[in-house]
């Protein structure tokens, strides 16, 4: 690795990695949706699983490698906290017995405060850490976190979090996108069975005559939008509750005036 490369070469290498990763992910999805009807005829012995897995994992790795190079040290220091928020709140919700996952609050929070690149790294590494500690099943779904982070960062940039009623809408949109992107993994890698309740819903849709990919997509559309709606709403309330001096620390939040329409405050002086 040529780490002594000048700054703008490194920046273009970053862009190249992210763009290549995004192209691979989109191409994988497009191929699976187009090739799927013919491929499903012969009882799971197709290469759709390999393509879904390889395309999404390679894409996610490229995007993560590209994104992490453009992050300053203060953002890197913040990402472990955000991943811990993802995991601890996700487990807490499971213990409280809520009917949602809420395992991407940290991802959305970081995307909103420090930009989508930071959110992408948070989301992908959160899934890697799930894989290292509890359960390897979420690993192939890492690319879904990329979609969540990019959409959350974009929503923050266009000012969704300045109004109380807009975050739930952005959450719904993100949930639909997440359901669509994760469906090929559920279908071709896990055969629709990623968990008890979701598996039963997939079965119900298949019994109504839907194909496997259509069933996992519809199952995702039932659960993901509600989950992301609550996630975005929680993040919106959290942002409103956090002191504005805290929010001013983040260059991304300051530059795009993520939370408030008030004029730009001067950055906190170093002598403070």
């Amino acid at each position, binding site marked *: 690795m040529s*780490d*002594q490369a000048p700054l703008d070469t490194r920046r273009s290498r970053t862009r190249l990695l992210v763009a290549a990763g995004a192209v691979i992910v989109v191409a994988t999805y497009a191929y699976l949706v187009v090739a799927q009807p013919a491929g*499903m005829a012969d*009882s*799971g*012995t*197709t*290469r759709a*699983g*390999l393509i879904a*897995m*390889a395309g999404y994992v390679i894409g996610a790795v490229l995007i993560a490698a590209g994104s*992490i190079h453009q992050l300053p*040290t203060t953002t*890197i*220091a*913040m*990402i*472990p*906290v955000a*991943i*811990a*928020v993802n*995991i*601890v709140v996700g*487990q*807490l919700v499971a213990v*409280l*017995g809520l*009917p949602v996952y809420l395992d991407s*609050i940290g991802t959305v*929070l970081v995307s909103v405060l420090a930009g989508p690149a930071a959110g992408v790294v948070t989301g992908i*590494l959160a899934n890697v*850490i799930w*894989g*290292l*500690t509890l*359960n*390897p*099943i979420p*690993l192939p779904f890492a690319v879904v976190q990329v979609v969540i982070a990019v959409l959350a960062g974009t929503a923050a940039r266009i000012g969704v979090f300045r109004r109380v009623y807009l975050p739930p809408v952005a959450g719904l949109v993100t949930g639909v996108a997440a359901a669509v992107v994760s469906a090929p993994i559920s279908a071709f*890698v*896990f*055969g*629709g*069975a990623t*968990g008890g309740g979701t*598996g*039963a819903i997939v*079965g119900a849709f*298949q*019994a109504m005559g839907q194909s*496997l990919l259509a069933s996992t997509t519809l199952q995702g559309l039932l659960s993901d939008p509600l989950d992301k709606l609550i996630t975005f709403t929680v993040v919106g*309330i*959290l942002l409103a*509750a*956090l*002191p504005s001096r*805290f929010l001013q*620390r983040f260059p991304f939040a300051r530059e795009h005036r993520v939370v408030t329409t008030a004029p730009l405050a001067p950055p906190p002086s170093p002598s403070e």
Partner: protein
Amino acid sequence: MTQAQFVGTGSPVHRLNPVTKLVALLSILVIVFALPQWWVSAIVVVGVLLPAAVIARCGGPLIAVGGRILLPIVVVLVLVQGLTFPGGRTMVWQWGVLSVTSEGLLFALNVGARIVCLVLASVLLVLTTHPGDLMSALTEAGMSPKFSYIISSTLQLIPAFRSRADAILLAQQARGLAVPRNPLRRIGVMMPLLGPLVLGMFTDVEERGTAMEARGFGSTARRTALEAIPDSTAQRVARWVMPLVAVAAVVVPLVWEVL
């Protein structure tokens, strides 16, 4: 339960270079997904993973952890696909409106064998490799040290984070916060918990960032390793041979179809 599941028995499998084990895991995954017949996965599980687990002396934990993850998935897979697989035509067994088709069962067998392989291979890697060693080895192999910082520090952070969450919950209950029985109303409990938690944790971060920058964390110069990771020529060769076998598993069937 978020602690890494590493079981240190000091066996030959534990002493392998972590990168070798990771390459082996990835090669196995490519092979079982490229050759999607159930017997390929069965051969890998019986011929590679189980012997490796026996040599590593962690067969018990592997079965316990893997079984806990796999049991619900496999049961749901067999039930759902056996009963409702879209391509199912041949009835094997019928009872009222329920009918099990052989196509559905074959699909569940093919997909299920692959998932068993995926989960057992990943769990075996985690059981026999300390996360810190894995990160050092990958950084030495050229991965950005930022990745290893994030992963290692998250693993240390989670227990501290959880005890802080417990303390905040107790403090809020002490001043009268009730946890309602209605699951939907419990979401309301999240807010008085999350606010102090997030604010407190992120406040700690600011000082950490300054301290890291002062110690050259952002430097892009190549670092030297404090702890040498054991490696051998045989493993270096294996790290080339295993991916080649995996590539062959992808390419040979394709060529076979074309000819």
